[in-house]
């Protein structure tokens, strides 16, 4: 078993509105080193070298520079950038904009609320393993609720109150079983376990599903 299996990757779907993003542009960033593709997928692995500790290494008495795993998937003007923590991704993104892109990236937002409601109303090959939502009608009296399970849509408690909720995070898993494939946040953040070629394919399928059904704010992830 790969010791990286248990690593959770967090990142963001982004778009650079000016033109297509090339790997050469990423490599122009002095802090980013290309390592190679993940299996035969279109996902690419990099190392981000930071002078500043971004995972609390200073508490453990470690000196820099600090090297962090970064996983990317480019597609036209869009890119998914993931790493071990959101802080690393934010720092890397700022560095990319500062050194290479000048105009910053846009977040590709995910219509999580619509997605959750559609998955419940019209069940597909995916089920919901997690949902976090605001309950806006109740104002200060009741602000947020969270649900966990293997298939939330099958629970009437969830179904019958869904019209009173605005979901902003959800977890997706295959109806056929297995653990959660990917967790999606309405602001374009995604997270999943360290990808191996088969998990990459699952994540890729979910993202294509999102694109195909119009849940992404831009035409991310063309079927290339």
């Amino acid at each position: 078993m790969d010791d990286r299996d248990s690593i959770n990757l967090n990142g963001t779907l982004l778009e650079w509105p000016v033109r297509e993003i090339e790997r050469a542009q990423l490599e122009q960033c002095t802090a980013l080193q290309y390592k190679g593709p993940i299996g035969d997928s279109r996902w690419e692995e990099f190392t981000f070298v930071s002078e500043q500790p971004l995972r609390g290494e200073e508490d453990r008495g470690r000196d820099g520079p600090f090297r962090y795993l970064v996983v990317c998937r480019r597609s036209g003007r869009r890119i998914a950038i993931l790493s071990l923590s959101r802080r690393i991704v934010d720092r890397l993104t700022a560095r990319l904009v500062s050194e290479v892109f000048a105009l910053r990236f846009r977040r590709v937002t995910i219509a999580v609320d619509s997605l959750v409601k559609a998955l419940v109303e019209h069940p597909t090959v995916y089920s919901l393993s997690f949902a976090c939502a605001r309950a806006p009608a109740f104002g200060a009296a009741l602000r947020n609720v969270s649900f966990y399970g293997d298939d939330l849509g099958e629970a009437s408690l969830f179904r019958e109150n869904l019209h009173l909720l605005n979901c902003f995070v959800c977890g997706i898993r295959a109806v056929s079983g297995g653990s959660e494939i990917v967790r999606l946040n309405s602001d374009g953040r995604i997270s999943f376990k360290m990808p191996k070629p088969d998990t990459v394919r699952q994540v890729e399928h979910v993202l294509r599903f999102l694109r195909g059904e119009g849940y992404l704010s831009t035409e991310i992830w063309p079927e290339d």
Partner: protein
Amino acid sequence: MQFSGKNAFLLLRREPAPGNEAIRIVADFPLAIPLWNNSSRVSPVFGVTNREYSSPVDFEFPGKWSLIFLGPVHPENVFPLASIQCHVWLSVGLFNVVLAVDDAPKATSIVDWAKEEQLPYERWEVEDGSIRDMSTWQPPDVQGDWRDVVARICKSAFRDELKEAIQEYCPLMASAISRSGGLPFDFATELVSFNQTVARLLEVYYRNVKDDRSYWALGQFLVINAGLSRFSSQTFAGATPIEHTECHFWLHSLLGIGLATAALRNVRTFIQSTLGEARLHDRFSALAQKTNTLDLTKRFPPDADYLGEVELGSPDPIIPLLTYFSARDGYRSTELTVSAPLAAVAACNSQRWSLLTLTHEFSHVIIRAIQARLYPDNNNPADLLNCLALIEANAPAENLFEEIRRIVLFSIVKMDDAAQNRKAGDSIDLNLASLQALLQRWRQDVDEILVHAFDFMYFYGQDVDKYVRGIWASWGTIPNIGTRVLDYVVRSICAVLTKHLRRGSKGEAFARDEVRAVLGALPAHGTGRRYIDQAIQYIDQYWDDVVLPRVRARRQLVKIVNVFLFSEGIATQVRGETQVSGGAGKKEGYEIVRGDLEVRRITNPLHFIEVFTDTLTPNATDSAWILYMLAFGCEPNG
């Protein structure tokens, strides 16, 4: 790109030499005064921060420069900025991006990009501060039959002053529609729709106005003309050709405040598309179909989404309200217009000038529509006799609508008792004349209680702290309201009482304590503090004898809103925001940084305003940022 907080003023003036105009940037408005002549116009411009460009605050355009005005466009959507170094300022006019480029081919590439994007622009060639040449964008004509509609309105056969008012309206509307052509905010569609509404009102409604009410119709037209005049001047001033379109908001006379009116329009559009489209007044009227056996004066009705359950047929289209800024009108609503204070343009980041106060005006619009059917018509003897019968029956009415009307009448009698300090059982004898007098006396008060409770529940989510701080901050801006403080205390406590109705007779005390706690925590000094001290005095010293009887008399009105006007399903639409990414933390889930001009979508402008107008101190830069986010983030078609 972020607002830097370093702002300046762009000053244009015609020099004594014919055809010679000068432009410069000055750091502060007083510095513009010595340069002022009869042609001078000025607008504030806001600096931004970025590695590639700068925003000088004192700049005389030495040498050769191309000054390019672009907009309306989100500054991060001006893609040439990714590769061209230049000076950048932002305005709150429709030309909201101002670029100074000292390289003519690069300036041409920016203009070419604007042409390709079909984005309005102007390019001025400037040499040592003097404008040598101007090239402007030609707005396209607004298509459709709007000219025929205006002509039909103009030909309407009305007499005297009404005819004058209509004739004033026609060129005003024709100019507004013409100037809106090709603008991204789609003002044209709304103006054409508003014009059609006016034509319909003239043909169907005003034509049937009897002589004794013709001044009422005139009043309505004057309101429309005043609103349209302000809207047009504020929005389209500073549109191309800039040098020929002057804004009468003098501090913005060069570029206008089109972006601010777009922001205001987007707030209005959101409320109309949620609460407006919910057609609460139609749903409420449908309660007449619901059989009733409950005595609502004594019983709390069962939990139900009374309005949400109503099935609507095919209602008439909603009349688009004309939105504009006005120093004189401030926050004000009529059947066809809604205004916000002009001060909000530079101070809407603060609680006392927050655009969230608009919700109170929209609540008035909705309650007015409900009251038009619920509140007895004082000019209709049959209606009054029916009301007397309802009261005298001393039993539940046959249907829910009539029962609610019965508790309104019941409340009015109690409100009068409380005001006159009458003891229980000493209420006024009711007959046609006394009922008429009561209805007239208490109409506005009933409206206000319903509006406050409605506003508190739908728009403030029963958040006592935000609500009490917000309304008392806005009241603090009104001069000479010392005599109304008791009314405001009663209204505040009644609104908060919506939270405590189910706690029985102790509800009023809980509501009082919550309001008192927030008032007590407000800053010891500042605008409106004397009113707050007065309010605290009423609560602390006159609760039992003065305040409590008034609140208790209004309890049934609060119940009407809490039980019958509030729908959880509709409130989810009004208060929902799908663009949040977290829970109820510091920013209520928004991943938005104040002052940062990131391209972000906001589906609920009210939620955004609620979160980001949390300060006491007005700030022009923060206000401009809020207007940018509302104008570009909430653009309904964007």
